[in-house]
């Protein structure tokens, strides 16, 4: 068998042990096994099927056996797939989580039910309640393998409320349905229909934010492509990563839908330096949002979809668009506007501003990481890094008066150094930052910072 192909064909596929799961769900996992003509191909398809069954995560255990085919058909084999479905297809998790970057705690619970309809799907309900009254509730279903499509299909209904009062004087409530048609390691295509309501219960919002309060409907298709060849997302020392995300909103004949086009680009590059396990990571991100439709040049983009820069973040690992700029507070960079003046109110509120976000954002960084000369630290991959980053964020309304000099002089920059503790769950950074350049009204955060990022 190792030296030459052994001609064998699949005569029949038998499924055993599935009380709930539909036969075709398991058969579709077997892929092209029925078309295989050699034993080597059949075994290869069986290995691929094993991986797919693992991904589906709806069986307790499974085994693929091969039996001799009918005697009147020599050179054939019967494939017997035996599965064991779990007695309890549901699971529940509840936990309390802290988010040091925003100094908040939240109570989160997840309920999952697998294979309810027998299509190998997973249903889940998630509830998250923050101590600042932020809440997110969502229900979703995920088909890991949708018919003969190689990728999964998922749909999710969610009710989310976010409190941006501290930064932009509004609270946001979102009720939406999102459907993903393509979802694999590289590509993701999804459709999102969301009812948004922005409100300002405190009556402090600036004029621009007041003008955006109220109801709107988002109907958008989003395509994302991601390629990551780096050796690690927690401590990359070699390789590159590229990510692009395009979103077009306003799909539908109704001209009253929110209409805009949004694009994000991320690029990361890691170069090993050979000594002390050092590596140089370089990266840049950019984003643009523009309205479209009749008289689009005179329209403004929705506050919720603009770019916001600032807040604790891990420059190296995250590929989430141009929002990272170390040394600045959350939503602390970019166009800002004075809030409503309340004469009888708290004096501390006088002069405060709302962050309005930007329509164009760009940032870049350089990060040099290296091992520390302590055995204990090396064993746990705890290392040090020094970094520098810079970024700028603009509104489309400023385009008429914008020149190259103004654009480049508007860049903010910061430098810092710190300790990185990578774990399997997340990357933890303890950094000291110094802001070298900032603009008027930026909210700077100097000194020590803590940040987490998922792998």
């Amino acid at each position, binding site marked *: 068998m190792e030296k030459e192909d052994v001609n064998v*064909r*699949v*005569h*029949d*596929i038998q499924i055993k042990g599935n009380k709930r799961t539909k*036969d*075709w769900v398991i*058969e*579709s996992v077997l892929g092209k096994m*029925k078309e295989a003509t050699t034993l080597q191909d059949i075994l290869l398809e069986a290995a691929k099927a094993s991986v797919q069954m693992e991904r589906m995560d709806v069986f307790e255990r499974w085994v693929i056996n091969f039996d001799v085919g009918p005697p009147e*058909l020599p050179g*054939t084999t019967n494939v017997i797939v035996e599965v064991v479905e779990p007695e309890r297809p549901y699971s529940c998790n509840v936990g309390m989580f802290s988010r040091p970057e925003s100094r908040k705690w939240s109570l989160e619970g997840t309920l999952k039910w697998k294979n309810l309809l027998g299509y190998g799907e997973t249903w889940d309900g998630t509830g998250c309640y923050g101590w600042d009254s932020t809440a997110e509730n969502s229900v979703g279903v995920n088909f890991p393998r949708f*018919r003969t499509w190689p990728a999964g299909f998922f749909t999710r209904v969610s009710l989310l409320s976010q409190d941006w009062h501290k930064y932009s004087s509004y609270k946001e409530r979102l009720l939406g349905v999102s*459907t993903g048609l393509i979802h694999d390691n590289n590509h993701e295509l999804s459709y999102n229909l969301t*009812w948004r309501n922005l*409100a300002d219960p405190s*009556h402090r919002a600036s*004029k621009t934010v*007041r*003008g*955006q*309060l*109220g*109801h*709107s*409907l988002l109907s958008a298709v989003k395509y994302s492509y991601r390629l990551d060849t780096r050796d690690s997302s927690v401590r990359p020392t070699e390789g590159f990563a590229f990510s692009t995300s395009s979103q077009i909103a*306003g799909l*539908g*004949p*109704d*001209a*009253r*839908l*929110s*209409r*805009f086009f949004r694009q994000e680009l991320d690029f990361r590059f890691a170069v090993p330096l050979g000594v002390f396990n050092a590596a140089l990571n370089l990266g840049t991100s950019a984003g643009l949002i523009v*309205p479209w*439709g009749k*008289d*689009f040049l*005179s*329209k*403004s*983009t*929705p*506050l919720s979809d603009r770019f916001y820069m600032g807040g604790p973040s891990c420059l190296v690992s995250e590929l989430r668009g141009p929002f990272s700029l170390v040394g600045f507070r959350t939503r602390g960079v970019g166009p800002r506007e*004075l*809030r*409503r*003046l309340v004469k009888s109110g708290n004096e501390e509120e006088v002069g405060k501003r709302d962050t309005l976000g930007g329509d164009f954002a760009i940032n870049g960084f350089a990060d040099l990481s290296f091992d520390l000369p302590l055995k204990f630290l090396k064993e746990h991959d705890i290392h040090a890094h020094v970094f520098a980053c810079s970024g700028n964020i603009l509104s489309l*309304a400023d385009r008429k008066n914008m020149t190259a000099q103004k654009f480049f002089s508007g860049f903010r920059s910061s430098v810092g150094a710190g300790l990185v503790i990578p774990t399997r769950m997340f990357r933890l950074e303890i950094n000291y930052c110094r802001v070298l350049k900032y603009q008027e009204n930026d909210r700077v955060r100097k000194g020590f910072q803590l940040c987490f990022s998922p792998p």
Partner: protein
Amino acid sequence: MAEKKNNGGMALRVRPPAFGLPTACPKCLASLLYLRLANITFWPEYSAAMPDSDDLPMVELGLLVGFASEPGGVEEFLRTEKLGDLDADLAEVDRSELKAFKSLLVPLSDALQLELWSRENESIAHKIYVSHLPWPINRAIEWNMRRKLMNRLGVNKENAKDREAEIYKCAFDAYEAFSAKKQMDSLYLVSDKPTSLDAMLLAHILFVLSVPLVGSILKDELVSKHPLLVQYAESMKDTLLKSNEPSPSDSVKSPPTSPRASSHASSSSRDKDKGTNPEPKRKQTPKEKEFRKRGKMFVMAQLAALMAYIVYSGLPFEEDDGDDNGHDDD
């Protein structure tokens, strides 16, 4: 003329115009007429994304903002900031009388809301409050607003007729009182100068007379039994509804991708919005209906295609299970 702050003038944010009125929302119309009677210079900004908000109307002057939902509303804001006060020169006796008559405006407002949000006038309420929002959220908001109003008025299926009769009786009593007050020889209700009471009552009467509510009992009552009030409103109509605002560019702000400079619209567009002839707006209604219909069909077609694919694409697999014909015979 009221004193103005030196930072760009005053803006009044109201719901969009319709039916020949500068704003078709009764509450917003009262504030607009108040500013006009007080000869305060302002320009209207239209906000159509907040149909269910109590904050409208709101007055903006630089960083100072007065919301309708705050104690005293727009009136109190103008008085506190010394921007204008129609009731400033009233004698103590007249002031007391003003307060008493203001309480009669509540049943008038309740009766008007009851008519506006009745099933027969669904399209009118839709046009005034939610027509600038996309389907289906406009329908959901409209339904919720009607439900909240009926709860506030205490109207339900069991007591609808009795409760409506009660509300209308209170409204008719208010009409009687205002008619009796107007019979006295004075240009305005309380004194020889307009007061906040005039602004509110005129807003109510002009709304009832201008908006084509189906089966309007209030209109029938006004026209048949209170000609003095109708005459009072008609005599003020041209003066009050003719705009003297400085800035022309008022475009409706519905979703966030609406025009940035909402305070500077063209006068031609405003004149079109305020047009005294309602027929051009009625010609647009089929177009709006077509947009809504196309929107509904688009979403339903998407859902139907998705469901059909899910359901019907499964048949070949089920047939393959029964046929068991996955092999070729040699």
